[in-house]
């Protein structure tokens, strides 16, 4: 399913929160046999400068030699273009904005929008819609290996959980 990513040793999976980034990261890493570096492993670090270095290391494998890695990080969506110097594959999750907003409401995630939207040089707006605009208009054209991945296309994967069985899922939950 992810043969198109095999040529890349470093893969960033990003996009709006609630767009399937966690699930996509897990199955890409598993299918390709890559190491998975999850955002929450370093984002909550008590040492921000060190977490930046750790993030860097995980992304580019400086400390693990030439190991292949999938980095899951919707949190770096605003500045993912800055990492193009190392030519990772950047996979941007695509999901209908109304479905994302409904999912945000379900888990009561929306309180963070006002803070996060400032990352996108905006004061207001629907965060996933703004992310998609910036991805299309600014980031995708300047990222060397940019890919869109439709959330619904993942339903063909054997680990996909149908919607009616996911209604009680918590953030980052991908299994029953």
């Amino acid at each position, binding site marked *: 399913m992810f043969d198109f990513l095999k040529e890349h040793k470093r893969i960033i999976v990003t996009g709006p929160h609630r767009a399937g980034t966690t699930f996509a990261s897990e199955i890409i890493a598993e299918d390709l046999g890559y190491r998975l570096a999850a955002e929450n492993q370093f984002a909550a670090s008590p040492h*921000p400068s060190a977490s930046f270095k750790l993030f860097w290391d995980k992304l580019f494998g400086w400390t693990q030699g030439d190991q292949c890695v999938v980095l899951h990080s919707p949190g770096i969506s605003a500045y993912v273009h800055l990492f193009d110097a190392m030519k990772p594959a950047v996979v941007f999750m695509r999901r209908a904005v109304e479905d994302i907003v409904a999912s945000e409401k379900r888990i009561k995630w929306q309180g963070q929008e006002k803070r996060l939207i400032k990352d996108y040089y905006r004061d207001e707006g629907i965060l996933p819609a703004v992310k998609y605009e910036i991805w299309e208009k600014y980031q995708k054209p300047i990222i060397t290996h940019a890919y869109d991945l439709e959330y619904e296309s993942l339903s063909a994967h054997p680990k996909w959980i149908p919607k009616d069985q996911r209604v009680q899922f918590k953030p980052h939950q991908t299994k029953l």
Partner: protein
Amino acid sequence: MGRKKVETWDLESRLLYQEWSLKRIAKHYKLTERTVRDKLKDALRDKEAELMELEGDVEAIKEALAK
């Protein structure tokens, strides 16, 4: 310069967003913009470049994560 300008996505807007994203990533990680720019330059110059000044903290975090 107002934020609405970025919505036009002309060259000036793109440069503005580039600068803004550098500021935001620096803020996110509590680093100076200069540090972020230097790190990006290092990466461009030589991906094997070591950022020795942070190595101690990184090792401490790795140890914490391993526990």
